C-alpha cells in the first residue's frame, strides 16, 4: 500500500472514458450477422460502461490495488476470521485450464478429475471431524449454517415435528441467528456463563419440546473452549434436539478435538478460514457442512458417490434431500485450493498448524495482558479478546485504537465483537505470523496505549497516513449513493 496519501486519489474509471476507445479484441464474426430481432427487443440505450483502452484499465485497477491493505503485505489479526497465509501453489493449481474450462453439465465421465477433487476433500474433512459425510456446495460460512440448519429441520420433520426454536449463546458468531431464521426457526439467545463458556445447566433450563437445536461456536468468539459441550450434547440428544457446531474457529482444534466424538451432529467449516483459501476482499468462500450418518439422506443435491470401477457418479434423484441450496457444485475453485492446502500439510502438518496458531495467540495474550484489560481469564486457544476497560477513561474508544494501528502499518483486530465484551478487540494471529511480527505488533499496541494516555488526540484523529481519513458512515447511509451518476 502506498503511503503518500496526497498522490493516491484515483478517480472512478468512468472519468477516464473517451468515445471510441476499446480495451478488448474479438476475432471477426465468421457467420452472417443476425438481424432478426425487432427494435423493441433490443437494448434501449447504451449501458454506463467506460470506454477505455487496456492500458488505462490496467493503470486504474493497479492504482486501486495500491489502496488496499492485504494479507500478503502484513499482519491481519482479525479475530474469528483466521487470516492465515494463502499459499501460492493453491492459486496455481486452481487455475489449471482443464479445471477452469470444465463445465458442470459436461457428461460426468468427462469430469472425473473434478469429482475426485471434491470427493477427496470431503473425505479429508471427515477424517478431521469424525463426521462421515460432507457437502461442499455451500458458498460461504453463513450459507453452510443455513444448509446445516435446513438439514436439522428436515431430520426433525422426518421424526414428525420440525420444532420451533434454536438456542444460540451470546458468544456465538453474528450470522448464526440470521441463518437459523432463514431455516424457519425462532431464535432464543441464551447467556454464556461468567467465565466465558456456556454451562450445561443453562442449556438444561432452556430445553423443552420446542427446541430443535443449539447452535454453538466452539471454541467460542472469546477463544475459549466450550468445556461442557459433551454434557450439553447429551442433554440435547435426550431432548430429541441436535447440536450444530459453527466450526469457523476450527483452526484451534485440528488433531486435538474430533467434533463427532464430543456429540456434534452437524457442523460447518470455512475453507476460506481454516483451509487457507483467500478471502478475496469478501468472498468467494466455501462453507463445507459435515454431518452424522443419520443426516446423509437429506444432504443438498447433487451428491457424489462411488460408481464402481474407480469412477464417481453424481446423484440428483434423492427423495429426502433438502434440495438445492445453489446452482451446480458450489465454488469449485475454492474447493481445489482447500484440497491443495490439506495435501501440502498432511495430517501431522494440519495438527502443527493448529498448535502454532494456539501458541501464537497465547504468546500475544501474554505480551498484552499487562497493558490491556482481559475480561475473561480462562485459558484461550486461537484468539484472545481484550476490552476497552484500560483506555476508556482516557476518552479513547476501541475504534480509535484500531484507526491508530493503521498508522503503524497493521490491520486492526476485529472490533466491537463479540458483543459480550465492551469495546472488544478480538485478535487472532494464526500460525502464519513469526515471533518477530507478534513482538512488533505487541510493542505497537503498547505504544498506542501510552499515546492514549498522553496524546489522545493522536488516536482520535487517526489514521494520519492511510490513503483516506475517517469516513462519514452516517452520511453514506443517509444519502444512499450506491452508484455513480454522470453530471
Amino acid at each position, binding site marked *: 500500500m502506498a503511503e503518500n496519501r496526497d498522490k493516491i486519489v484515483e478517480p472512478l474509471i468512468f472519468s477516464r472514458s473517451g468515445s471510441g476507445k476499446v480495451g478488448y479484441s474479438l476475432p471477426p464474426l465468421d457467420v452472417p450477422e443476425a438481424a432478426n430481432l425487432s427494435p423493441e427487443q*433490443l437494448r434501449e440505450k447504451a449501458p454506463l460502461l467506460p470506454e477505455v483502452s487496456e492500458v488505462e484499465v490496467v493503470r486504474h485497477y493497479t492504482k486501486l490495488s495500491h489502496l488496499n491493505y492485504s494479507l500478503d503485505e502484513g499482519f491481519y489479526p*482479525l479475530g474469528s476470521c483466521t487470516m492465515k497465509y494463502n499459499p501460492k501453489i493453491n492459486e496455481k493449481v486452481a487455475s489449471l485450464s*482443464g479445471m477452469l474450462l*470444465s463445465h458442470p453439465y459436461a457428461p460426468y465421465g468427462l469430469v472425473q478429475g473434478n469429482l475426485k477433487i471434491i470427493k477427496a476433500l470431503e473425505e479429508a474433512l471427515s477424517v478431521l471431524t469424525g463426521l462421515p459425510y460432507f457437502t461442499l456446495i455451500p458458498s460461504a460460512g453463513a450459507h453452510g449454517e443455513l444448509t446445516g440448519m435446513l438439514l436439522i429441520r428436515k431430520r426433525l420433520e422426518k421424526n414428525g415435528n420440525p420444532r420451533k426454536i434454536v438456542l444460540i449463546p451470546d458468544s456465538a458468531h453474528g450470522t448464526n441467528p440470521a441463518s437459523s431464521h432463514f*431455516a424457519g426457526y425462532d431464535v432464543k439467545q441464551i447467556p454464556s456463563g461468567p467465565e466465558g463458556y456456556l454451562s450445561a445447566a443453562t442449556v438444561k433450563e432452556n430445553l423443552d419440546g420446542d427446541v430443535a437445536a443449539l447452535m454453538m461456536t466452539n471454541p467460542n468468539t472469546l477463544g475459549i473452549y466450550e468445556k461442557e459441550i459433551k454434557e450439553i450434547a447429551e442433554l440435547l440428544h435426550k431432548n430429541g434436539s441436535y447440536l450444530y457446531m459453527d466450526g469457523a474457529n476450527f483452526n484451534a482444534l485440528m488433531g486435538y478435538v474430533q467434533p463427532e466424538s464430543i456429540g456434534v451432529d452437524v457442523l460447518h467449516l470455512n475453507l476460506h478460514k481454516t483451509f487457507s483459501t483467500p478471502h478475496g476482499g469478501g468472498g468467494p468462500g466455501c462453507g463445507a457442512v459435515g454431518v452424522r450418518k443419520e443426516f446423509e439422506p437429506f444432504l443438498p443435491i447433487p451428491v457424489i458417490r462411488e460408481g464402481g470401477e474407480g469412477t464417481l457418479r453424481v446423484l*440428483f434423484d434423492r427423495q429426502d434431500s433438502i434440495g438445492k441450496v445453489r446452482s451446480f457444485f458450489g465454488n469449485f475453485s475454492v474447493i481445489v485450493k482447500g484440497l491443495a492446502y490439506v495435501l501440502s500439510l498432511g495430517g501431522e502438518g494440519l495438527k502443527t498448524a493448529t498448535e502454532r496458531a494456539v501458541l501464537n495467540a497465547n504468546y500475544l495474550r501474554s*505480551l498484552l495482558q499487562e497493558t490491556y484489560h482481559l475480561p475473561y481469564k480462562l485459558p484461550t486457544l486461537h484468539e484472545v479478546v481484550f476490552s476497552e476497560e484500560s483506555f476508556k477513561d482516557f476518552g479513547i474508544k476501541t475504534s480509535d485504537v484500531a484507526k491508530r494501528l493503521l498508522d503503524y502499518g497493521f490491520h486492526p483486530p476485529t472490533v466491537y465483537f463479540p458483543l459480550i465484551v465492551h469495546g472488544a478487540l478480538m485478535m487472532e494471529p494464526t500460525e502464519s505470523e513469526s515471533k518477530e511480527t507478534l513482538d512488533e505488533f505487541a510493542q505497537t499496541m503498547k505504544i498506542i496505549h501510552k499515546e492514549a494516555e498522553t496524546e489522545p488526540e493522536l488516536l482520535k484523529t487517526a489514521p494520519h497516513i*492511510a490513503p483516506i*481519513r475517517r469516513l462519514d*458512515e452516517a452520511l453514506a447511509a443517509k444519502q444512499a449513493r450506491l452508484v455513480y451518476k454522470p453530471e
Partner: protein
Amino acid sequence: MRYFPQNSEDIRQMLETIGVSSVEELFHRAIPDSNRCCEPLKLAPALSEPEIARYFQERERENLCSGYTLFLGGGCYNHYVPEAVNALSSKAEFVTPYTPYQPEISQGTLQAIFEYQTMVSSLTGMEYSNASLYDGATAAAEGILMAWRMTKKTRFLVARSVHPEYLATIRTYVRNFGLVVELIDTDEFGMVCPLSFEKLYDESVGAVMVQSPNFFGVIEEYGWIKEKIGESKCLLISVTAEALSLGYLKSPAAWGADIAVGEAQSFGLYPSFGGPGLGFFTTSNKKFLWEMPGRVVGETVDTEGKTGYVLTLSTREQHIRRERATSNICSNQAWCLTRASIFLSLMGPEGLREAALQNHSKAVYAQKEMEKRGIPSRYKGPIFNEFVVLLKDARKVQERLLEKKIVAGIPLCWFFPEETQSLLITVTETNTKEEIDRLVKELEAANG
C-alpha cells in the same frame, strides 16, 4: 514446513513467556481430557510442492472434456476473458484482503465494488445494486424473499422456463416460511404462456418471476405482464442467467421489472465447473433499498471532504439486526465482482454489444443450419445464444456425438423427464463456424 515461520528457538522463548512447558500444555489446560483425541489424523502424509502440482495435473488429465468441443451453457458459459482480467484480479491486493471492514485501508476493493454496482445496475436499467450474492440461483431466491418482505403476500408465480436449478433453490429457501411457488406454463414460442398466467394470477400474488433469455434460450417479451400487474403491490422480478445478453437485449427495467437478479459469471469468470460465479441483485426503487439482501457499498466523504467508499446500510444486516436481518449474507463474491468490473471496463458498451451480437449471430446460424438439415427447433420464439432442438432421442444423440469429441448440449430430460427429444444447444463467440458446421453435420448423422 514452509508456511510456519517459527523455529524451535522461537517456540522455546514463546513458551517461556507464556509460562508453559510445552505446546500440548496449552491444549491440556483449555480442553477437558474427555474431549481431546489422541489418535494421529489418518490423512496422507504431506506432499511437496512439485507433488501437489502433479496431483492436480493428474486430476486435470482425468477431465477428458479438455479434448472436446463443448456446446454447453444452461447458466454457465464459456466466453472470452481478456488477459488483463486475469493479470489484475490475481494481484494479492485483490486476492488476499478480508471484507473491507476498515475502509481507510480498503478503498481499492470498495471503489471496485462501487464501480461494479454502477455498471451492473446500468446494465439492468435499475437504480441500485448490492455488492453481489453467491450465484444466480440464490439471487433469485433472495428476490422472492425480498418480495415477500415488501408485499407480505405468500403466493409467487415463477415461469417454468426459469432455470431449473434456480427454481429448486427458490423452493429450498421459501419452503420453511410457508410460501407457495406456482409455475406458469411455457407456450409454443417457448415463452411465458399468457393463458396460464391469467389462470394463476390474482391479488394474492406477491411477485411474478420471469427469466430472459429463459432456460430454453428464448427471449421473453414480458411487458404485458407488467401491464397486467398494473399498479397492484405485486412485484415483477426478472432473472438473467446469461448476463452477456444485457449488452444487446432490452433491459429488465425497460420491460418493467422492479427487481432484476441473475448470474454474471459471463463477465470475466471461467466456467470453473460451475463456481465461483457471481450473483447480482438490482432494484429500481428507493423504497426497496432497506430490504435488499447482502452487502452494499456507498459513497461518502472523509473528515477532509475527500470522496471515499464504505460498506453501508448495514443496519439491514445479520451482524446488527441478527435474526431480523434481510439476509444472512456475510462473505459473498467480492473477488468475482472485481473481475466483472475489470471485464466490463475493458469491454465497454461496444465490446459487450459486439460479444453479445456474435453469440446471437452464431447461435442463429447454428439453428438455421440445423433446420435446413431437418433438425427442427423445439420453440418458435426468438433466441439469444442457446436454443432447444428436437431429436429422435436427445440423450442417445448426445452420447453418439461424444464419440466425435463433441458435447452437443444438455438433454432437457435431465430436468424435464418428458422432454426426451429436446437438447439445449449453446453457441458462444468461442465456437468457430467450423465447429458449428461439424456439430450440424454430426447431429444430422447421429439423428438419422
